[in-house]
């Protein structure tokens, strides 16, 4: 073959290759579009469990299941490490038959995906809002119950003042974030800490810049203990911080952003989930509880708070929006730590797929019993007292196929 012929044939091949590539690309594109159009409302996530098979059902108290399948959840980032730990332990215990996926995308987004039916369960720091709860109630109902306790601690960075030495009240914290108390040697702080040598330095108040359940609970606490806070600011995932307008506020993205800001700014104060306070070695403040004692977020103080709440907590199928967190912060009890919070799981009462019902039941029953044992709790979280876990266990009985 001469050189010229070779060039010609290469040219020919190129043409074919181009045509083939075009066909392949077109086929892939149309397959993608069509598969998307044909997808049931459940979307990509819920398809997987359609392939699951119900072999036998077993009474769901221990992990003796022969069920197999996948359930998908999404939502709050706060319980994510704990849920992942439970999911992987459960995956092991079931010999890889049951897979629970959880995407940490934020409480709001998780609730939205759950409403759209894209995921089977939602993880959420606050329970559903009233209107959404009622919407679900009209469509077969939902259950929502606490799965883990998270505690919010007030951290500070005052050179010379060690961890666990600074005493604060909710009202003083509210005034700091309102911008009404701007110096560490303010008489209101001095009165609580007669033994400390507090400097005449401006307080830098650090808060979350991203919308978060942590902020929702923290501001619920401030609203409960301070009328001024309730009227001026209120409680939500994100609020408009009065202290920012004075130039003394800093926003940090995520718990890690708040911890970093407190660490880097002498004379600052902030609020984070317990785990971050310990891992970053930040100083933790004593907070005065409703009974007038100054407490640290110890296991006992948190458990005491959770137990004190059992009486006010509703049932799993009831509307929690008026109770949590506005009624649950600052609970009674001599030892109770005031800013204790739950993280919730939200489930439908009715699912189309009997396998899904069985898996959800089995997994969350395990979470609320075995999962609460110390060896299954990730550091930085606190287990539910049995009385609180019972709310979820009762609620799970309502799950059914429809």
């Amino acid at each position, binding site marked *: 073959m001469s050189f010229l012929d070779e060039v010609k044939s290469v040219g020919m091949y190129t043409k074919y290759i181009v045509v083939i590539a075009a066909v392949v690309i077109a086929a892939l594109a149309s397959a993608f579009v069509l598969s998307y159009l044909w997808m049931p409302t459940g979307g990509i996530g819920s398809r997987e469990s359609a392939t699951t098979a119900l072999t036998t059902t077993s009474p769901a108290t221990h992990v003796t299941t022969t069920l197999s399948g996948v359930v998908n959840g999404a939502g709050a980032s706060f319980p994510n490490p704990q849920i992942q730990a439970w999911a992987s332990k459960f995956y092991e215990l079931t010999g890889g038959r049951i897979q629970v996926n959880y995407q940490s995308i934020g409480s709001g987004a998780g609730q939205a995906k759950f409403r759209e039916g894209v995921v089977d369960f939602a993880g959420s720091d606050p329970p559903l809002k009233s209107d959404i709860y009622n919407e679900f109630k009209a469509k077969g109902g939902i259950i929502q119950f606490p799965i883990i306790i998270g505690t919010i601690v007030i951290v500070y960075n005052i050179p010379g003042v060690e961890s666990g030495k600074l005493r604060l009240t909710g009202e003083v914290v509210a005034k700091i974030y309102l911008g009404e108390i701007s110096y560490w040697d303010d008489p209101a702080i001095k009165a609580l800490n007669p033994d400390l040598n507090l400097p005449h330095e401006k307080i830098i108040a650090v808060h979350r810049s991203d919308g978060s359940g942590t902020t929702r609970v923290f501001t619920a606490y401030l609203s409960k203990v301070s009328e001024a806070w309730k009227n001026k600011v209120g409680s939500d995932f994100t609020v408009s911080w009065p202290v920012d307008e004075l130039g003394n506020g800093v926003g940090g993205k995520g718990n890690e952003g708040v911890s970093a800001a407190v660490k*880097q700014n002498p004379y600052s104060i902030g609020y984070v989930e317990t785990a971050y306070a310990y891992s970053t070695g930040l100083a933790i403040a004593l907070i005065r509880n409703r009974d007038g004692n100054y407490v640290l977020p110890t296991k006992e103080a948190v458990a005491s708070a959770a137990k004190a709440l059992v009486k006010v907590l509703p049932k799993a199928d009831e509307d929690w929006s008026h109770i949590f967190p506005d009624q649950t912060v600052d609970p009674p009890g001599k030892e109770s730590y005031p800013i204790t919070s739950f993280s919730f799981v939200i489930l439908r009462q009715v699912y189309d797929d009997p396998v899904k019902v069985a898996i959800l039941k089995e997994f969350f029953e395990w979470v609320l019993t075995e999962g609460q044992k110390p060896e299954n709790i990730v550091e930085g979280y606190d287990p539910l007292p049995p009385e609180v876990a019972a709310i979820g266990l009762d609620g799970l009985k309502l799950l059914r196929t429809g």
Partner: protein
Amino acid sequence: MDSEKIFLLFLIVFVSTSLLIVAGIVTSLIINSYQIFLRDGLSFIFKNVWNPVKEDYGILPALLGTLISSAIAISIAMPLAISLAIFSAEIAPTSIRGFINSVSDLMASLPSVIYGLWGLYVLAPILNQYIMTPLYQYLGFIPLFSTKPIPTNLFTAGVLLAIMITPFSSSIIREAYNAIPHHLKEAAYSLGMTRWEVIRTLLGYIKSAILAGAFLALGRAMGETVAVAMVVGNTFTLPRSLFDMGYTISSLIANQFPNAEAYSYMMPALYGGALVLFMVGLIINLAGLYWIRRVMTRG
């Protein structure tokens, strides 16, 4: 069909796809944000408030923060980028040119979250201690430096952005510089010009590439999300000095998007912010194109 036609067909398909994607993005931005403009009108752009409790949103501080931090970034990055480009193309010994270029290209391709973490834990404290605090102490009477700095603020965000965009615009300038026909350089030297005079002349020759590098870098600075969100301070206030904390539109979106669906108007407000950012970017780029064209026609 002959190969010419197939080739043309391909071009049409791919060109129209990219046009459709841009059009689709703009359309979805408008569809998703019209509610907030319907409710608040243009005051959404000129209000200083972000209060989800009252569902009241206005993005002025974030818009200003975007413009200020990008302006700081571009004014620090351009001299650095031009110097780096000239050094690696003209002055550095040939043996280390490849090394410099690959390090700079590596920097351009690092994920921004790495810059963000480094900015938060390393850059911010250093800047605060050695640059911002002295500036505030000795030049605090100048309004630009009048705020007592804390590590995370608009200035830190600007410097971090400058570091992020320098390698990128430098490589554009370097490529343009290397593409200058060799005889021009030889001619310049043969006229008896010094090295500095030659470089200055050649830089004039690639003015349009330098401007293009600057505008592309500006676009990246304005759109940068994660890294800025970590170091900008994230407080919703109108900045009064360079050392004030602030917000940028993209960091606002990064911060607020995860829980936005819990509100009725936050999603439209965030999409509205994205639309405004898109518009501002478009205006700046059009102005840049116009400028580059004028520079080119003047020669």
